[in-house]
């Protein structure tokens, strides 16, 4: 059986979660690999959420917020935008491939875009293979 990636999606309530709902109401089908967790704003996404998801077995993490300039809280997504590279740098140090964690903007009217993103990310991670985090953790524990 082919590898089915597990992707955790953190979506802001106002734009991206609504966009995902729109994909639903418009019956736009997409890969079933994503599990969505709603937060009020992408700026609420603590780096530890991403680490926790990877630690607990996610093969990918998708963060979605409002497009720059469209944040419900005026500027939350700009904070996310600035925090994200710091997180990515740390993830790179951990040996986590770049494609596993993505930040994308999805507006409330972009149901199709959300579906396309999920499909694209699922394909890319499927090609990349399972995350090594859990296996590495198990090895670490065994060595201890």
């Amino acid at each position, binding site marked *: 059986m082919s590898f089915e990636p597990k992707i955790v999606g953190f979506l802001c309530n106002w734009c991206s*979660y*609504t966009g995902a709902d729109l994909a*639903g109401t418009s*019956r736009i089908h997409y890969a079933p690999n994503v*599990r*969505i967790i709603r937060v*009020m704003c992408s700026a609420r996404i603590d780096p530890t*959420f991403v680490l926790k998801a990877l630690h607990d077995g996610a093969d990918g993490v998708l963060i979605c917020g409002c497009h720059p*300039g469209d944040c419900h809280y005026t500027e939350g997504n700009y904070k996310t935008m600035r925090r994200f590279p710091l997180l990515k740098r740390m993830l790179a140090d951990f040996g986590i491939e770049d494609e596993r964690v993505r930040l994308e903007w999805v507006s409330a009217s972009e149901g199709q875009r959300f579906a396309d993103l999920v499909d694209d990310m699922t394909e890319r991670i499927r090609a990349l293979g399972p995350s090594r985090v859990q296996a590495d953790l198990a090895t670490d524990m065994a060595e201890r």
Partner: protein
Amino acid sequence: MSAESPRIGVYVCNCGTNIAKVVDCDAVADFASQLPGVVVARSYKYMCSNPGQEMIVQDIQEQQLDRVVVASCSPRMHEPTFRRALQSASLNPYFLEMANIREQVSWVHDDGAIATDKAKALVRAAVNRVTRHEPLESMSVDMCPDTLIIGGGIAGMTAALEFADAGKRAYLVEKLDHLGGNVARVDLTAPYMDAAGDIVADRVRRVIESPNIEVFLNSEVRSLDGFVGNFTAMIHTSEGPAGNGHDVKVRVGNVVVCTGYKEFDATRVTHYGYGKLPNVITSFEFEHMLHEGRIEMKDGRPPQYVAIIHCVGSRSPEFHTYCSRVCCMTALKYAREVKSALPTSYVSDIYIDMHAFGKGMEDFYRRSSEIKTLFLMYKRGDHPVIRKADPGDDCDMLIEVHEQLSGETIEIPADLVILMVGMEAREDSEEVAHLVNISRDKDGWFIESHPKLDPVATTTEGIYIAGACAAPKDIPDTVAQARAAAGRILSKIARGKIEIEAVYAEVDEERCSGCRICNDLCPYVAIEYDPETKRSHVISALCKACGACVAACPSGAIKARHFTDAQIFAEIEGVLA
């Protein structure tokens, strides 16, 4: 912190067949019943129905449930419904969590086994999360009884009059130097041929005479701060004694956005020769002629042949894919007005489909076809071609149409061509959306809270939309929406107080190091530093719960109520287990 021994009820909604046709709801309920803390798990046809809600209430009371998970549609749809159900069973409404197994599962996946697995994962996450929920008390604040209305067209004036009639104050802000909006540019209206001028003039008079309505002409809203019940708006008006403009600050409880539409710019369509052929005009230019009482060509002669072309800018792959709703019937109105002013003229009506929906419209269509209008059907994407007639012809232009019903290519004469230009979102719609913090769809129209069940509210509490700023609309629908928005607001004003969501951030002052990083992060200046205690605290009424400060606090001292780290961690564990 998890509850000692939670007693959770899980309710899996079938949503008729919307969920059940893909997800095995009974299997999801069985799965849920095995989860830790779950006392009862049921699958039911419609959880949002009265019997569905009563089932929850009864279980809470009989089985002493202290937490509830509803797996159904998006929480954006029915979270308030189920929170009320909990409340009616005397359970704190924040002990509810929803798993979105319709929009995120059954409507987007078709493999039943995979969809059922995903639904189980979402339910497990919700059960995990709800275990960590805490009771929250919502705040009650005063509702300012005054309302701000942006846009002085038919929608804005109608809403303002509703408030005035109820004895409430309304501030009506109009960008132009007069009220009336686009309706004031129209002559007669379909299907009953009432004069738009009469509809508008009466309202303008009543608005101006009303002691409860303050009208700001040549004005715009520059800023809007605060939250539902307590907004402060800055209105910039260029009227006034000094003549150089000044700002007026008003306090309002709610806002109705009635900014309307703009007509499609016909110069964007090059193939009809608008702007080059002098006798090709837009529908609004024709309205102007009707207003002036003369239907004439550029050279002043009355036209012998009048052609009306539908769907200019609408239902077109290059411009707007949507239907602008009012143009078909307006075109028929023109046919009648031309025939009545120039009885010997010939009118051809060149359309894609004739959209005659709405009260009285089909009859209007039938009556209009009896006045010898030549109807020619063209195919979308295969538009008619207009060319200048030869000097010997008895007409100014010739129009070639690949007529669909006859299957023939037909050439008809025309002296005057009226382009039925569609409606589009105004160019300042983005600015307005930012001002009042609402969203726009791909075409620039404002997005309603729910397209069917909540069409005048938006996702921002206290901000309402009415009329053609939300989508192309005719006058009756616009008026209905304006009154609906006013009604919604008046019912809130009548209560005097407004409940504010109990979701906001709070600082654990024991853990706060006083670094003040959060102070500058907050877009609402809701975090205050106390130099005496050297600690920061959140002014809860100002906090809008984005959580930006929570993620940034180096001491982990700020808690996002209802979106705590523990709750989100529990959810992550749930979806991945």
